[in-house]
């Protein structure tokens, strides 16, 4: 089982993702430079948080034309697992691999704080270890996290169960107070139609050790590992 972490110019959570996979989960992981034309033989690709290209023009708008992004699109097309965290989520929406867009926070502030998100789809490789409605505590750190999708797209996403995480209070209730950035319907994370590409604004890779205040982010990574382990077993039969 091999993880790859893309390193764009301006990524700054690449090390956090790498550390979590290698040191906490004891899985194989390598960095993939943005100039690569292939993602190699890997099972999971992580697009980390940061400020690619200084967030110039729009967050993720320039990074999405990096040479490696063609390879990421092909990898996703073949069913490979792709996880976009924060800026990685923005890159995936800009690339059209995920629906919608992330806009400036409605209060115009950069928010760096712990939030709660509810798992609203637990049938994905990224969430299968969570119960439906499970509330996860994770940090957010962003200025452009307000999720938007036009009404007809939103309806389509709901029909396909593509809303994966919503900001909620501690009890799992969707409230305006629990929404840190003005996201439409408190949406914190979504998936593509096939369910093999997920993006979210909160940072699960920064919620994987007790010293960081929460270990809830591990549920996402453990889901991925369970999914891939199951697949390996099936493959070996």
């Amino acid at each position, binding site marked *: 089982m091999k993880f790859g972490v893309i390193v764009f110019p301006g990524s700054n959570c690449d090390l956090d993702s790498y550390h979590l996979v290698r040191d906490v989960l004891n899985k194989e992981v390598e960095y993939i430079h943005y100039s690569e034309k292939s993602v190699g033989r890997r099972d999971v690709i992580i697009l980390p948080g940061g400020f690619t290209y200084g967030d110039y*023009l729009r967050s993720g708008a320039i990074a999405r*034309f990096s040479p490696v992004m063609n390879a990421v699109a092909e990898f996703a097309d073949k069913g490979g697992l792709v996880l976009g965290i924060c800026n990685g989520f923005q890159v995936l929406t*800009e690339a059209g691999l995920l629906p*919608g*867009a992330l806009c*400036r926070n*409605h209060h115009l502030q950069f928010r760096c704080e712990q939030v709660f998100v509810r798992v609203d789809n637990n049938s994905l490789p990224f969430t299968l270890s969570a119960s439906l409605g499970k509330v996860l505590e994770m940090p957010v750190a962003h200025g452009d996290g307000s999720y938007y*999708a036009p*009404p007809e797209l939103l309806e389509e996403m709901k029909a396909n169960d593509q809303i994966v995480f919503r900001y909620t209070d501690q009890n799992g209730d969707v409230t305006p107070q629990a929404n840190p950035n003005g996201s439409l319907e408190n949406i914190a994370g979504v998936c593509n139609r096939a369910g093999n590409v997920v993006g979210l604004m909160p940072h699960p890779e920064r919620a994987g050790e007790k010293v960081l205040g929460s270990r809830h982010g591990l549920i996402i990574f453990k889901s991925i590992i369970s999914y891939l382990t199951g697949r390996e077993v099936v493959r070996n039969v």
Partner: protein
Amino acid sequence: MQWKAKVEVTLKKAVLDPQGAAVEKSLQALGYDGVSQVRVGKYIELNLEANDREEAAARVEDMSRRLLSNPVIEDYSYVLQEAGL
């Protein structure tokens, strides 16, 4: 032939514009009564090489759609003129 394109990118009407709202509040605080509907957008200027206006327009359209704007949340418009005019 050198052309100059002036591209304007604006948030679609349905998309909330928190920057515009903040500017509007500030203008009202400065005493500019009756100011409303403030929207903040982007202005991008560029020169490009093309044989004729049609070709220049097609290229500006293409770059506006692919990079300069995000069609999910933004609209764009542009004016094209011969560079140096």
